[in-house]
């Protein structure tokens, strides 16, 4: 299946050639989880991230579907 992965802020540094806010098309087997897509993109498993699938809050163990848009950005919570 095809997934659109959209990285924001500092995250494009993990995917050479990627640009913040521009979708990256990712091919993945059916039932691939958010966590697997992130790991394959080289994003560290221990990073605190905001994960949105089609605009809805998601978790790393959530399964993705064809044409899902996975938006990811770091937790930015200092004041």
């Amino acid at each position, binding site marked *: 299946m095809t997934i659109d992965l959209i990285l924001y802020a500092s995250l494009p540094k993990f995917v050479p050639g990627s640009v913040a806010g521009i979708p990256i098309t990712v091919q993945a087997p059916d039932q691939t989880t958010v966590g697997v897509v992130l790991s394959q993109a080289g994003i560290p498993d221990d990073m605190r991230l*905001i994960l949105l699938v089609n605009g*809805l809050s998601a978790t790393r163990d959530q399964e993705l579907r064809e044409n899902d848009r996975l938006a990811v950005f770091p937790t930015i*919570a*200092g*004041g």
Partner: protein
Amino acid sequence: MSDEFDRYSRHALLKVIGSTGNEKIRSARVLVTGIGALGSLISILLARAGVGFLRLVDKDAPEMSNLHRQILYNERDVLVGSPKAEAARANLLTMASNVEIDAVNIEIDRNNIDLLLDGVDVVVDALDNSETRFIVNDAILDRKIPYIFGGVVETMGNVMTIVPGKTPCLRCLWPDPSHVLGHARASTVGVLSSVASLVASIQVTETFKVLMGDLESIIHGIMVVDIWKNQFHVVPIIPTPECLCAKIASQPSGG
């Protein structure tokens, strides 16, 4: 021309504010939760704009390592060691003596949040942790008070305007605050002073929009900024169906 009119005339000239808008600002009562880097500039801009009442809450005292970005304080405040709330009030009154300032030197918790929200029209977030933000988030949903979330770390920032009944809330970003425990902090990875000022300025702009009643112009989603990379994005968010904010939105208006 009265002194009062002259003082705020550059806002009065603006189409988006005008004299009517200045009156709305003058009658506004705003709570600023946290007066560190974000809260410093937020408080300064709101006080100088003529917000009638500011409640400022923080439990810390200014430290020398704060001064590069917490522009409300000076070296003397650090040497004296007075609480931020007290120093903030004193310094703000030198800029805007006509603003009523309620400076509160406590840590926000579930027992005091209702009292802090009492009589407030808008809450502007400048906290440094997500656990306390959730306390505020839940309380403003209950009371239907708009809440301008902001956060910064390193060269990044984000802003989200939460209007109960109309927008998603913080729980639509993080269903549980434990998911973000251990997030990067200024004390460990640093924070660029200018990104704090940028995010605070955007939060104040959002506050003005809310006070003007211009909800069409607020950020719809969450703004994610990396000032070093010159990146500004607004990421759409859909309310989580089971979230309290979605339930409020589904209630009949006036109910």
